[in-house]
């Protein structure tokens, strides 16, 4: 695989969070769940969150889908949020 072809398979996006922004490169076929996990690790958040990625339109990205399925391009911004795990106790 030559460099150009390999480059074509990658996508560089900016992930925004309250802890700052992270510019990261992923394979275009990476699942959203994988991008969420990489983001969680990058910012050092605990495993037990209810993490989501959102498009600039506000749409919540589905974890089972891939980056390429959202037709993202280099430089696009995504927002990382945590809805909080529900740890209800008899509620």
């Amino acid at each position, binding site marked *: 695989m030559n460099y150009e072809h390999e480059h074509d398979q990658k996508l560089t996006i900016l992930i925004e*969070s309250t*802890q700052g922004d992270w510019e990261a490169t992923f394979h275009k076929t990476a699942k959203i769940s994988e991008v969420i996990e990489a983001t969680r690790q990058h910012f050092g958040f605990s495993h037990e969150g209810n993490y989501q990625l959102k498009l600039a339109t506000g749409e919540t990205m589905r974890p089972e889908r891939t980056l390429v399925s959202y037709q993202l391009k280099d430089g696009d911004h995504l927002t*990382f949020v*945590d809805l909080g795990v*529900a740890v209800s106790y008899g*509620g």
Partner: protein
Amino acid sequence: MAVDKAISLSIVKLELEKCREYADKYGWEILTFDEDALLFKVKLSSPLNGEIFIVSFKCDNYREWPPYIDFIDPDSGQEGLKKSYPLSSDGFFHQNALICHPCSRKAYGDLKGPHGDWKLVDWENNPKIGALKSIPDIIIAIYERISQPEVYRGRMK
């Protein structure tokens, strides 16, 4: 050991500044900030049905303790009524009128909450804390929960 009030105040002010960026984006309204009591209120509106939710944050001893978060009845101004809380598809908003998460002081057994197994002073290291370690993150979580149709179930009865 109690956190000096001036330290808590400076942290809350910084985090509220961050909140104002999101307030513009999401239409939140920061209603009051009583610096002496370290108490502020924020008004959120569900983009799905226009329901108004007013949330109060009491931040004494912050960040050694998490904020004391409660919902306020938009009509009467009464605090802690079940009907002032949103309902979500999971138990984040607890039927006992509290947020059941380590970011919420009201959930702790020390304050007669359901979680006697959690330690107030260790709230930021609770494995279930996720990203909810700051006031902006907590408000974002509440706002997202009243904005996503898969999660939001209207107001508690």
